[in-house]
């Protein structure tokens, strides 16, 4: 059934029936225009506004926004936090997907649901839970204070909150794909004498590299852009615990709009790069998938 549908060029039938299987031309135009108007007022115009506001007072004012010491340290902190959180969640994503996609065991689907849990939690609550653990009134607060270790209102708290909100990204991209690919290839490699690690690096990894990259890109974008969770644990100490999004908030609330939007434009560029990379990765993955579907008979049942 599926194979027949795939092999029949449906265009010819559409051509024969003409307008009967499509909407009238004016309806099509109306739908496209309505959709574009909606997207313009919620996506395109806000996006344009970021750059218009950032350059409102010219290039010099724009560039001056980044020469401020607080801006530089915010950039540095954002890079540090993403530099810690993304690799940790990458390792977790790879390990978890090996366990969950290549083995069947009781409680497996519960574990998959639990990994997705951080996506269901509000960012503010994601920050709050760490305050309850490490804050002064928290479980470990008194002990940490006695040993002079700062977690909340310091960099470790920001890293933890970021780890929480970006937790599922890599795992959720890898698990369904690795599961779909089964275990036969890895078993063959191991029968031929490969170690488990070799089987993973040489067999599994090349098969999932695009999904892995995609997960890392999304994880990084969220790690650099997280606002709510980080806002709760940071304490907003200028030059010390301000990430880029928090710096944007402070500048905006000080009515320093040019600087706020200049910093925001940096984060917007990051988002645009993320979207471009995502599009490229999706296209590559799609092409490879189509290629394997043509060469292996197994591919036909995928979809």
């Amino acid at each position: 059934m599926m194979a027949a549908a795939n092999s029949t060029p449906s265009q010819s039938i559409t051509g024969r029936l003409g307008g009967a299987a499509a909407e009238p031309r004016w309806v099509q135009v109306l739908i496209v225009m309505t959709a574009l108007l909606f997207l313009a007022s919620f996506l395109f115009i806000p996006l344009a506004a970021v750059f218009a506001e950032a350059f409102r007072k010219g290039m010099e004012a724009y560039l001056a926004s980044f020469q401020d010491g607080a801006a530089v340290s915010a950039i540095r902190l954002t890079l540090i936090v993403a530099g810690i959180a993304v690799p940790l969640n990458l390792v977790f994503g790879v390990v978890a997907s090996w366990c969950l996609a290549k083995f069947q065991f009781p409680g497996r689907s519960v574990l998959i649901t639990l990994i997705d849990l951080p996506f269901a939690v509000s960012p503010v609550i994601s920050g709050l839970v760490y305050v309850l653990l490490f804050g002064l009134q928290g479980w470990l607060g008194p002990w940490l204070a006695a040993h002079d270790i700062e977690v909340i209102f310091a960099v470790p708290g920001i890293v933890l909150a970021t780890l929480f909100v970006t937790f599922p990204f890599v795992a959720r991209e890898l698990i369904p794909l690795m599961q779909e690919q089964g275990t036969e290839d890895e078993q063959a490699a191991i029968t031929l004498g490969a170690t488990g690690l070799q089987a993973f690096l040489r067999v599994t990894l090349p098969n999932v590299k695009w999904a892995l990259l995609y997960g890392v890109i999304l994880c990084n974008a969220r790690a650099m852009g997280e606002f709510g969770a980080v806002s709760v644990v940071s304490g907003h100490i200028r030059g010390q615990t301000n990430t880029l999004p928090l710096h944007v908030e402070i500048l905006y609330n000080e009515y320093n709009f040019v600087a706020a939007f200049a910093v925001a434009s940096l984060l917007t560029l990051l988002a645009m790069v993320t979207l471009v990379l995502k599009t490229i990765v999706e296209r590559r993955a799609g092409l490879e998938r189509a290629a394997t579907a043509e060469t292996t008979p197994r591919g036909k049942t995928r979809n």
Partner: protein
Amino acid sequence: MLHAWKPRGVLPGFGITFGYTVMYLSLIVLIPLAALFTKSAAIGWAGFWETVTAPRVIASYKLTFGAALAAALINSFFGFLTAWALVRYRFPGKRVVDAMVDLPFALPTAVSGIALTTIYAQNGWIGKHLAALGIKAAYSPLGVCIALTFIGLPFVVRTLQPALADIDKELEEASASLGASRWKTIRRVILPPLVPPLLTGFALAFARAIGEYGSVVFISGNMPMRTEITSLLIIAKLEQYDVAGATAIAAVMLVISFFLLLVINLLQWWSVRQYQGGHA
């Protein structure tokens, strides 16, 4: 599918990967979440109830859930049109538009917050036209709804797109050749299988909206009783060192989020089942 699974033990590494997964999951996610419930249990029922039903908190629930519902409905309607246009029609710039739909996922919420505030403020690009009509967009409940619409925009489009692309053209053509009008074909052939994904997208957008913070705080104006969302109220309590109060409200919101997660899982299961049923 199951026959593909060889008995456990052929591939190595189950023990160590399982152990690491459970340990890391517990440390980063489960223990912190448990702390929230333990802390709120320690407040005591009377105090807990008093906190979570205070008038200011109730007003924040009404605004949060009302605006989230309105935003999810707006997204269902326009998201449907957008997905339809992207899957079925050709128009210039389509690929760029398609990629841009994910912008709300990629753009930091603080950036979307200040950008939306700027254009929907009374002197903003869109806000000034609304103001001429006597509509106050930013710093009103409508502003909250605008921010939540932005944040939920990709969900409906992205859940509908694959389902729309999957509809068998032959069924439509069969329906048309048997004499059904285009509208009847859409209503009787195309729409029914789209109901589960549409509901899933709606629920995802709604669930995302009730917890949102960053994009809302700038545009809402944050007036207690009027434009204060629940997430902001939690932060306000924390800033007043009322950790117990913040914890109680957070526990209520978390339970609601988990309930929505359950609903979403059921909806997705329904979508998949219907999809497989249609092809069996």
